Every structure is written in structure tokens, then in C-alpha cells.
């Protein structure tokens, strides 16, 4: 499990077309564990994609990782992931398949969504929910945006951690 201030685990995961992605040398990288079937992940999804769009010109990378057991939850299958990407729901955000669940375990991810913000050196600087209320679009991913602003300005995010809120990750038996 990764704690604030630790170097986050490195990984390489395929997107829905098989292209491999890894956290790179971006000024900040967001790794968000998410999925297709969870209402919390879906409610927050657009806000997270907007963050990717709004911070792209500052070099921020956003990687969405689906860690769920697709055998028990077919809505999280690679085919279902591809369908969402093809419908344009992930513009600017690679949607990666963590089939072995090893990345989610290494990060200590608990829910979908669960957001991790890494700085340019790969150190974990924020972990938790995108904002305070999945049900209020006006929150606009404020925790995540605040964390990115802080990291890009060389400050500590405030808060550095919030409880992740969402559906439990569906681990393989």
C-alpha cells in the first residue's frame, strides 16, 4: 500500500487498444481507479475527464485504471471498456485494464473511484475522492484540482488525503 510521500509503484498497463501506458515524467500524474458499473464512478466521471482537459496544457497526465474482476462483473469487461472509449467518454484519458489487479493492490486502492496524484518524481502527493460530493457537479473535482494546483506550484496539497468514496473494488476470489 502506498502512503503519502512514498514513491508510487510503477506499472505498465494496456489501454483498450492494447497500447501500453505508464506513469511518466509529467509534472503531475493522476491515477484514478474507476470502472463501468459503479454509480459513484459514473457520477464523478465527467468531472475527472474535465480535469484532464483543463490541465492538459500544463502537462498533467490522467490515467484511468479499471481493476475490477470482469468475470464476476461483465460490465467491466475489456469489450465494455472499449465501447465507452469509442463513444467518446474518455477523451484525453487512456482507459487501462488492470486484469491481474496487481496495480490496484500495489496502490492500496479501495474503491471506484479512488484518486492518486503523483508529482514529477513519482511521489504520491494526494489520495482520495475527487471532491466532497458525488451528487453535486458544482464541486467540480475540487480536491483533485486543488491537489494538482499545489503539486504544479511546488506546494503540499491541502488536504493531502480524503476518504475514498465509491463502490468497493471487485477483487477476484
Amino acid at each position, binding site marked *: 500500500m502506498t502512503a503519502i510521500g512514498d514513491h508510487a509503484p510503477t506499472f505498465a498497463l494496456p489501454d483498450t487498444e492494447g497500447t501500453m501506458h505508464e506513469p511518466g515524467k509529467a509534472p503531475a500524474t493522476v491515477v484514478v481507479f474507476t470502472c463501468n*458499473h*459503479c*454509480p*459513484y464512478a*459514473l*457520477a464523478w466521471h465527467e468531472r475527472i475527464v474535465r480535469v484532464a482537459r483543463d490541465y492538459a496544457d500544463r502537462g498533467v497526465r490522467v490515467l484511468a485504471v479499471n481493476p475490477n474482476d470482469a468475470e464476476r*462483473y461483465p460490465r467491466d469487461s475489456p469489450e465494455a471498456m472499449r465501447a465507452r472509449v469509442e463513444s467518446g467518454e474518455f477523451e484525453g484519458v487512456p482507459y487501462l485494464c488492470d486484469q491481474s489487479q496487481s496495480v490496484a493492490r500495489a496502490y492500496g486502492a479501495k474503491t471506484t473511484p479512488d484518486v492518486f496524484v503523483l508529482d514529477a518524481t513519482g511521489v504520491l502527493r494526494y489520495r482520495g475522492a475527487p471532491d466532497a460530493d*458525488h*451528487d453535486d*457537479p458544482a464541486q467540480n473535482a475540487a480536491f483533485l484540482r486543488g491537489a494538482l494546483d499545489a503539486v504544479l506550484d511546488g506546494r503540499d496539497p491541502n488536504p493531502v488525503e480524503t476518504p475514498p*468514496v*465509491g*463502490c*468497493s473494488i471487485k477483487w477476484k476470489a
Partner: protein
Amino acid sequence: MRVELLFWDGCPSHPNALAELRRAMLDEALDPSTIVVREVETQSEAALERFVGSPTIRIDGVDVQPPGEEPVGLTCRVYHRRDGRISPTPDPADVRDALLAARTATTERR
């Protein structure tokens, strides 16, 4: 009127759903202490209950937002609010409408 809330503990939305259901019942001058809350713990229970996700609210056996062809299973349920937002809980207006419809049906049967 039988008001049931079925939930699966792997999904965190049922406390909010129960609070909203209680509020809706109070607004309609119904007694929220009559709500039957039941946990669905296994896949076989889900199949038996035709449980398509947590939370599920039924009034006199009728789902407040009929799930259509949703498969049964232990999962969080995806609801659509009337303004189009996706939510883990049903729109309170749908819950109130379901309560009113059940009350009307009960009155007409008498």
C-alpha cells in the same frame, strides 16, 4: 402499504437511500418506522429476490424505478435522477411518486 429497502453491504449508498426514503414517507404523512430493511448477502439470495443492485426500494412489491432488463447481482445500482444525473440512489421525486401511487391503489381497492 409495505415499504422495503433491500441492500448489499458492499455498496455504501443504502444509508443515504434509507434517509431519503424516511424523509419521503414523512412528507407524505406515512410512518417511516414501518420500512422493512433487508440485507441481500449472497448471489443466490439476489437471484431469489430478483435483486438488481443496492439499494433497491419496493413499495407493495413495485420497484420505485423499474429496472427493466438489468441482471440480478450483488452490485451497486445505477439510478438516473430526473435531471439526467447518474446517482447511487433513486430520485426522491420518484420515491414520492411511488408512495403516492401505492396509496392511491390501496384507496381504490377499498
